[in-house]
């Protein structure tokens, strides 16, 4: 039983990270209608910034706050300078800009801070003895912290979208950009805010995942997380925040359980089997579990 619980906890923790990054992807999609391929590397870059600040003897919370700020600014700038001019012309062009950012940001991080693996301090207690026992399994402080961050963020996002003016404007732009502009919404500002918000969420995901990741902070940390997060976002429906969270958790738990219990799959087909299950579910619900099916007049 304790083995099962350990695996469940591990799966939920990984899943929370996927969910965080998936939330960032969904926020971008709702605004611009595109999947931000560079989301993982942007999160990586801001995490490097946070790490660098901790090496300058600044407290970890300050570093995280700064990383969130940098993520917001970078996201907004990217949208304004790189995405907006190209989005008008061509869907594929946006994808290539994102791919260019993907390579560029990764290399820039390597250029500025070196490619060696770095140790990232965790904002939550994660020493050997900072755990509570649940049915024989250990729940460590940092896992609890990640869950807490996810729940907190979900709460904030719900508040934002439901009770603030900015949130209302964002929902309007996501629904129908032209009508929103006609109704007086400053669409361009909203788009930039959307990307900025996703940059900040990505930064949060990055700083939370790196203390837990096998390789700590290295240039390859975010790639597989990004793939799982994209799958999670798509699985849950690209325009559904709840779907992204559910998707992330499901993928995390699936991966842990499959690796643990189905030995013929083992660790070498971990990503494949999780993704395959997603594909099967997409067959049943082609726009994702919680996605809205668009009705289009032909």
């Amino acid at each position, binding site marked *: 039983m304790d083995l099962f619980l350990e695996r469940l906890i591990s799966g939920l923790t990984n899943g929370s990270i996927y969910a965080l990054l998936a939330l960032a992807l969904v926020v971008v999609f709702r605004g611009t209608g595109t999947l931000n391929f560079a989301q993982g590397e942007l999160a990586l870059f801001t995490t490097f910034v946070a790490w660098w600040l901790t090496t300058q003897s600044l407290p970890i919370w300050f570093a995280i706050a700064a990383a969130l700020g940098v993520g917001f600014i970078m996201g907004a700038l990217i949208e304004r300078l790189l995405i907006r001019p190209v989005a008008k012309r061509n869907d594929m062009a946006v994808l290539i800009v994102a791919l260019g950012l993907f390579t560029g940001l990764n290399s820039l991080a390597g250029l500025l801070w070196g490619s*060696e693996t770095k140790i990232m301090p965790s904002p939550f207690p994660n020493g050997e003895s900072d755990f509570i026992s649940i049915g024989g399994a250990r729940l460590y402080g940092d896992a609890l912290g990640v869950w807490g961050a996810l729940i907190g963020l979900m709460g904030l996002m719900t508040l934002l979208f439901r009770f603030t003016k900015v949130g209302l404007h964002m929902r309007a732009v996501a629904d129908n950009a032209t009508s929103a502009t006609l109704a007086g919404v400053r669409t361009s500002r909203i788009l930039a805010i959307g990307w900025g918000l996703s940059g900040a969420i990505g930064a949060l995901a990055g700083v939370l995942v790196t203390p837990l990741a096998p390789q700590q902070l290295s240039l*390859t940390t975010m790639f597989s997380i990004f793939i799982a997060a994209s799958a999670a976002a798509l699985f849950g429906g690209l325009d559904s925040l709840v779907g992204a969270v559910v998707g992330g958790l499901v993928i995390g738990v699936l991966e842990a359980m499959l690796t643990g219990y189905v030995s013929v799959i083992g*660790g*070498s087909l971990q990503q494949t089997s999780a993704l395959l299950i997603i594909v099967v579910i997409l067959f049943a619900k082609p726009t994702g579990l919680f996605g809205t099916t668009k009705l289009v007049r032909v």
Partner: protein
Amino acid sequence: MKRFLRVVSAAALPALVLGACGSGSGTDTGSTEAGSTGGAASAAASVVNADNCADPEGVKAPITGTLKVGWSAPTSGPLADAVGNVIEGMRARFAVENAKGGIGGVRLEVVVKDDAFNPERAKTNVGELIQKEGVHVLETFGSGQVDAIADDQNDACVPLLFAQASVPAYRDIAKFPWTTEYLPSADVEMGVVVEGLKKKYPNGAKIALAANQTESGQGIANGLKKAIEGTNFTIAAEAPLTDPRTAASSLKSSGAEILVNAGVTTDCLALTQAIGRVGWKPDTVIQPSNCADGATLYAPAGDAADGQQILRWLKDPANAAFADDAAVKEYLQQSAANGADSPTNSYTVNGWAIADLMVDDFTRAAKLEGGLSRLTIMQAARTQDYQPPMFIDGISFTMSPTQAYGVLAFQPFTWKAADKAFAVGGDVIDISSQYDK
């Protein structure tokens, strides 16, 4: 009584002969004399010759002016720092040699081309290095790269020396006479591990194996399985390292006394932290030899890493145990003076040691018939028995016309969490006798 003595002497004779053979190459630490070089060189000449070369004259042509060593290496991407340090170490060592006048007046130069760890680019790079840059010796990093270039470089008869890989196929001297690898074979390393374990657990024990799914990880796992054949060690559980936490949970339930990490540098810390978190402290934890850096891979895990064992063949300039070693002091001073940014980094030390081995090859090659040429360099490489000053005393790098394993001995070190440093964990274990046929 007489019959007894006859039996005993009959048994003793082969043992003596084998013993003499075994002690022949493994424990020599000095450089070989010209006389024995001549004898060994003629054996090497039967293996390495210019007959199948595309350009036999070019292979034998004397090298004058500059000797170029060409690298195809991932100088961009996640391995950039590590590779950068290796090359810095090599350049520093060559600079020291050039200051002394080079190899009989021939200067040593390093040329580097980036392949981003991509085998296709490695193949193109090597073609360019050979055809355009005219390099005399090649170096590369990574088994995929060696795979991509081995045929081309063997056809062109350009030596690939001390490749940073450990693929079993290239230890075959007949098929790949122009290729040698530097990294210890996983089979050899696991053989030494098992020798050490036999001393600690004379009655055998259960082993939990955490295996990385990449080629190096699988190589170590298979090496371990081969090494325990015929012993009373068993593998009680095996788990993939894709998710270290899940692996730790699964392996803990096996109740094994020994944990072997068949992984790469990114797995060492992760696995240690994972077993700490599930509350499992095996009696013995064996880390692979490439998990050598104490500060980044052991210290952050705190007490969970205490007592972990690793095998080393290089002296560690950062370790207090080697602070008084004359070779280490000289290395630190000379490498820093010649452009090495981080002399205590294990990759820099490796680069320096490899360059040292190359200088030994070149020096002996210059004394062979025909002078310094690609052919004599390869012949010298095939008959090397040299202990670089930065190798631990008692460990040398040996190649002969019958074996191409290089490093056949290790010294175990144990991590002491309280001191945040490695301490010597035993004597040098040398299994070269098993490989010298």
